[in-house]
């Protein structure tokens, strides 16, 4: 294969990398006018990258699965780039614009990490993607040097993250030892005959731990509240959205493709050892812990963090169910969730800029101060709570029906009932947020919220997307299902 051909197939990644370097260079010029240009350049680069993804061939495999191009990877590269795009436009109107070039460059590097994760079916490249993503996100989380909470967020995220990476790498080495290959398809070929030996079980569990950390599933979620609360808002938004989507895509590929033969079963009274009971336990724990702890929160970002734990639990249901149905439900749900959270963090960013905090009291009376923001926030919260006609509702319906259908005797009903019970709890705290916004009066004399046009448009577009995918889910579902077949 010629070098030029290779470059053509990785052109989206290359374009984003190039943009990152350009943005970095512009940021170094140290002139205010130039640094104001950074977000525009970054956004332009991302748009071009989407174009490059669209120009890719329908499918290709390089180096035994190290880089693959399928409709699925292309779709999710676009989704990741879109999430990065929205994050860039959130970052563009942040007040603290010091070192803007570096910030955006790190963001773009993280985006490359996402694209690598999505576009690989080989454990080593996946690990490289994880590390690239992780290292960039650690920096992004700790970026606000004037805020001690940001430093705390960065440190916690880094310590937990690097430990989890170590587990994953260790797990991968076990699996390599058992199967003497790192390609997912080849691993599944090797696993098809054997039973689950202790060594393999250790390998699988350890690999899963790393991903459970990334998706913030309980009990590996402890970093999330501090990272979500302390990190600069756009960083938190990206950690909560892009990182999660890519992790779910790759986790799905690893368990469904790589570990496919050792799935086991999580059905009630009929559990069979394998990865699916492990994921089922993670899901159940996440739903319980996330929802119950979220009840006690009084800070919107912490609340979003614990609800993120719960949502990770719901999303795992699709993988537990397995099959094409379950995987596409997981992909739909995580995508919708990511967009919703980017929007919600956008609202948080504005409120924080205007009132200096993101506790409940800072949101009090938002409806009278900025009806548009309040309206958008209610769309995000109600979608997270799973209310129709918003996308979150359809996502839940799809997930739960896939989970129920997976077993002929409704074996996963226990998990579905638990998840529904969890959403009932979650409704309470989402309603409390809306109560604060719509019912309570603002504390003291707070002026109208000034929202610049860019942020208003970004948030409204995201809210419109959430509504649109709820009313016409088929636009996205059909894409995902088509890309899986």
């Amino acid at each position, binding site marked *: 294969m010629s070098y030029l051909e290779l470059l053509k197939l990785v052109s989206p990644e290359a374009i984003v990398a190039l943009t990152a370097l350009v943005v970095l260079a512009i940021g170094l010029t140290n002139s205010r006018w130039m640094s104001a240009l950074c977000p525009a350049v970054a956004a332009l680069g991302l748009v071009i990258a989407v174009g490059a993804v669209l120009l890719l061939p329908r499918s290709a495999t390089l180096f035994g699965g190290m880089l693959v191009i399928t409709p699925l990877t292309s779709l999710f590269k676009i989704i990741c780039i879109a999430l990065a795009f929205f994050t860039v436009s959130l970052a563009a109107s942040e007040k603290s614009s010091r070192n803007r070039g570096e910030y955006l460059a790190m963001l773009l590097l993280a985006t490359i990490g996402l694209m690598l994760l999505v576009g690989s079916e080989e454990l080593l490249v996946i690990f490289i993607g994880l590390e690239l993503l992780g290292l960039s996100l650690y920096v992004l989380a700790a970026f606000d040097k004037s805020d001690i909470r940001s430093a705390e967020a960065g440190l916690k995220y880094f310590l937990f993250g690097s430990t989890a990476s170590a587990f994953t790498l260790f797990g991968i080495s076990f699996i390599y030892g058992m199967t003497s290959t790192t390609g997912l398809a080849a691993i599944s070929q090797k696993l098809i005959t054997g039973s689950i030996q202790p060594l393999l079980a250790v390998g699988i569990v350890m690999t899963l731990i790393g991903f459970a950390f990334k998706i913030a599933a309980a009990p590996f979620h402890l970093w999330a509240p501090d990272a979500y609360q302390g990190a600069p808002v756009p960083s938190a938004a990206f950690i909560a959205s892009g990182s999660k989507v890519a992790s779910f895509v790759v986790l799905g590929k690893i368990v469904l493709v790589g570990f496919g033969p050792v799935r086991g079963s999580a059905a009630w009274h009929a559990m069979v050892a394998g990865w699916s009971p492990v994921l089922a336990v993670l899901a159940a724990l996440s739903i319980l812990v996330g929802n119950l702890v979220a009840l006690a929160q009084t800070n919107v970002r912490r609340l979003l963090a614990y609800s993120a734990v719960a949502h990770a639990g719901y999303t795992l249901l699709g993988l537990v169910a397995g099959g094409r149905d379950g995987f596409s439900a997981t992909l739909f749900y995580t995508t919708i969730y990511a967009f919703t959270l980017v929007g919600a963090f956008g609202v948080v960013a504005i409120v924080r800029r205007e009132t200096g905090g993101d506790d409940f009291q800072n949101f009090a009376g938002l409806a009278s101060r900025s009806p548009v923001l309040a309206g958008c926030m209610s769309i995000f919260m109600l979608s997270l709570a799973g209310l*129709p006609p918003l996308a979150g509702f359809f996502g839940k319906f799809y997930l739960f*029906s896939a989970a129920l259908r997976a077993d002929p005797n409704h074996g996963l009903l226990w998990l*579905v009932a638990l998840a529904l019970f969890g959403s009932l709890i979650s409704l309470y705290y989402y309603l409390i947020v809306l109560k604060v916004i719509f*019912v309570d009066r603002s504390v003291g004399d707070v002026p109208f919220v000034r929202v610049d046009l860019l942020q208003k448009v970004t948030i409204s577009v995201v809210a419109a997307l959430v509504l649109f995918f709820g009313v016409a889910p088929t636009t996205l579902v059909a894409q995902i299902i088509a890309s899986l077949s």
Partner: protein
Amino acid sequence: MIAWTIYITFGGAAVLLFLPRVFSRRIALLTTIAGFAIALAALFRNDVDLAHFTTIVRVPWVPTLGMNYQLAVDGISLTMVLVTGIAAVSTVLFSWDVDLRQNEFFFWLLLVVGGSYGVFLSADLFLLFVFYELVIFPKYFLIAIWGSTNKEYGAMKLTLYSFFGGALVFIGILVVYVTTGSLDLNQLAQFQFNPQLQSWAFPVLFVGFAVLAGIWPLHTWAPTGHVAAPTAGSMLLAGIVMKLGAYGGLRVAMNLFPQGFQMWSKWIAVLAVIGIVYAAAVALRQRDLKFVIGYSSVSHMGFVLLGLATANALGVSGAVLQMFSHGVIAALLFAIAGRMVYRRTHTRDLDELSILGLGRALPFAAFAFVVASTASMGIPGFSGFAAEITILLGAWKTFPVAVWITGAGMVLVAAFTLRALKQSFFGDTQPVDSSNASSRFEPITTAEKLGASLLMFATLAVGLYPKFLLDRIIPAVQNLRFLQP
């Protein structure tokens, strides 16, 4: 044609958000009148076969998952749409004095109305559930923002109860969908579910719906919710929303799981009878006028459930007629208690009201309350009598004992209604200066008179000529498959 009730109402709600508030009342009134007019027109034009659940709109929605946007109508649906229209128009008329955040108020109000139209006309289970949930959360805002006594508690309790019911319904729908792969109510009504599934899926689905209908012992949200709600809120709740539960139980739970229904019908009858007697007894001891009416609602909805439990054409038709009748009467009672009395006297305490001499001060209100009370007690000539007698005739065939107990309950109903009537308007103590009693309170406005007249006319018209509605209800009921021969 009748599908336009949904579109016009949601269209009106959307328009409200973008126009200045001076127009909001008029737009809301026009919207609801249009919905009512369409329902009325459909009743007189016999171009649709009302004996069967006739599909009027069918558009693929999510083809890959078998969801359709499908609307259908039969005599039962049409009756419910009609009562929704009547209640909606009068609710807007009785909300003419709302000053606080008018746009939002009427926006939420129209969402409730539009969602209810949607539920009554849906022929696709998924669509039905979307509308069903869409009705629930606007009530939270209606009560929490514009309500009175203990509003945030009442609103949250009501919402959580509703969503608890919603979660049960969701499980039921998922099970139906996963078992059959279809969501089309007409197709599902032909499907033979296995009896073992029916025996547990029926109670889950039915209880889920019945929570909203105020089934004992899950009724406690209703009185507190009614008391906390603004006038419009209680009118919508009692007039429309409680009917959604009963309608769902009839259209979905009973019609899909006939054998499950047979197994459980006597337990439903037991709960219904307990509800009738218990709520009436509790109402006898209440001092707050709205609590009295709130419990009377629970009692009257007990009749609906009893009618459904009879499983014969007479009883079920009576239940549908009672839904209509109670919708009109309860809306009228709440309108008088909330708007005509409470807004003027700022008290609902029966002892305090009894010394105000309201009978002289507000003659129109007194007249309307007398009409509403007599209708509520089930005096011949009003719709309540026609409905309850039909239900009891039906129940006589299936549960003779229940009729005896219910008969005793009706005495209690008469007792608390007369007590409330006497104490509120015709107190023993005449005011000191009865000469200028009328000038102490703002006179009854035209809007109130119009609204009250509409409701009084509806109950009287149906009471004098119930055949008009029964001719449309009975054939539709006879085509439901759970009926015992």
